[in-house]
């Protein structure tokens, strides 16, 4: 009998029973999917972005289907950190699943205050800093597009978090490596990538942008090659573990990310179509690993990297 592949995944000091987590914003605050998903089997859950105060989000329509993908302009609607702690955290704690809280803000100080407040709460494995938020002090430019602003945000969260801090990279900048490096030097424990790609659709009947927010974030299988490329580069160039995501639907997709250098993966949009997408990836991963010659998740991580050139200084190959 072939030995069962070891699915244990490590993201820095955090150990996950398997490498599959729910991606922020697609899995609510936990309870919404509980009658459709075997929650206790998940590698972890990243909850919806939480701000210091409630954010109202954007006007509808907030989603629009595109070829092999989805545009969304939810606008980071969330109830604020106090309501999250009061209404959602007890349920999430009781689940006993690795919990990652996604943190959002309009200013460095707002990010810091969320982190400070969460530091008093138990049951949270890591914070994931969503730096794809508009910086209201800099005319709405995203923190994640500017290495200096990204450094400030990550520094503020790391100083106050009291737990590992992951930084979620935006693919909408040609400075993604610089931003990743800034996050590392500010003390991030891991990077997650990618957030959605900015896009737009036009409603032909109404003669205006289809989404209430105008433009939106593209997710789903359409963006998988972009995610794989970012994970490959970032995992080779920055000395931090990477959590990969973008368009994962199957165990083979997850394996692609692992081989590109991801230590774990997140599944988002696929859950909308198939609520059991994550548990199917988990179920099918052992076979996929074995089929491609891996005895464990750990063995597959970075397997596509050229040998001996995993860190800085590697040439671009495209």
């Amino acid at each position, binding site marked *: 009998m072939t030995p069962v592949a070891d699915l244990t995944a490590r993201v820095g000091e955090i150990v996950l029973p398997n490498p599959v987590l729910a991606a922020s914003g697609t899995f609510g605050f936990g309870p919404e999917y509980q009658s459709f998903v075997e929650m206790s089997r998940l590698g972890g859950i990243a909850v919806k972005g939480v701000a210091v105060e409630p954010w109202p989000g954007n006007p509808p329509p907030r989603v629009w289907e595109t070829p092999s993908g989805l545009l969304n302009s939810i606008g980071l609607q969330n109830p604020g950190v106090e309501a999250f702690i009061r209404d959602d955290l007890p349920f999430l704690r009781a689940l006993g699943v690795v919990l990652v809280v996604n943190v959002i803000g309009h200013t460095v100080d707002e990010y810091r205050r969320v982190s400070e407040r969460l530091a008093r709460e138990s049951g949270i494995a890591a914070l994931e800093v969503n730096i794809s938020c508009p910086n209201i002090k800099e005319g709405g430019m995203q923190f994640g597009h500017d290495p200096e602003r990204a450094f400030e945000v990550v520094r503020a969260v790391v100083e106050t978090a009291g737990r590992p801090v992951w930084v979620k990279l935006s693919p909408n900048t040609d400075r993604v490596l610089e931003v990743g490096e800034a996050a590392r030097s500010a003390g991030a424990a891991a990077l997650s990538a990618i957030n959605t790609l900015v896009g737009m659709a036009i409603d032909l009947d109404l003669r205006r942008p289809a989404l209430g927010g105008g433009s939106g974030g593209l997710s789903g299988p359409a963006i998988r090659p972009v995610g794989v490329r970012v994970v490959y580069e970032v995992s080779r160039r920055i000395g931090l573990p990477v959590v990969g995501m973008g368009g994962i639907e199957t165990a083979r997709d997850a394996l692609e990310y692992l081989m590109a250098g991801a230590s774990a993966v997140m599944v988002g949009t696929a859950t*909308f179509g198939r609520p059991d997408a994550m548990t199917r990836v988990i179920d099918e991963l052992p076979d996929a690993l074995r089929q491609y010659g891996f005895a464990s998740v750990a063995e597959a991580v970075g397997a596509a990297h050229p040998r001996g050139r995993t860190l800085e200084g590697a040439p671009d190959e495209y």
Partner: protein
Amino acid sequence: MRAVRLTIVERRAPAPEHVELMVDAKDLAGRLVPGQFLHVAAGGTLRRPLSVSRVEGARLGMLFRVVGAGTAWLAERDVGETVDVMGPLGQGYPPPPPGPLALVGGGVGIPPLFFYAQRWPDAALSVLLGARDHDSLIMVDDFRGLGLRPGLCTDDGSRGKRGRVTGLLRDWFLEHPDGSVMACGPAPMLHEVARLTAAAGRPAWLGFEQRMGCGVGACLACVVPGAPGGDRVWYRVCTDGPVFARETLYGEGRP
């Protein structure tokens, strides 16, 4: 509750561009409240929300208009194939309140109201149906089969009166000042129903559509605005609705 595969046992073509799939619904049929919906896999990234149009024993119906890629994909399914559905989802209509009750349906908002009429055969029901044209005025014979005589209108006058179904409702209130309303249809129709029922000081429950992602309350895609100054800025159509008491979205005053 899980996503389940239901076998298509009958495919009806009730009107041009409309298809009704009858599926073997196993234990699901008995648990459904009229106004609840199913989130149906339709060949794309996202599922499509569809109301239940009727229950016949262990079978249920989904009656939809072919408007885009997802409904076109569903329309091509044949007897013997399965459809993958999540549900029942959302909040349906309450049981009939005392007194006369009008079911006010517009276009593809009509199916959940037929299910309501089927579920509550002893209620004092009036049925008012409107659509853009003759072919879009669906389920008229189904209502007649229940012994009801629906009031009809179309935007172009090709069937029933020319005009909006809210015109029929205004007339109905003259005869039934103590009436209540269950409505489903496009947002402008529901706004007008809200206005009329608030002016009459009578209760109304309104079934809304909104573009959905998850269908279970997780993604916050499907929101409609709450009443100004009310408890919440937004309500989710998928879990807080699709059926809302008028006050929730329009407040206590007159919209």
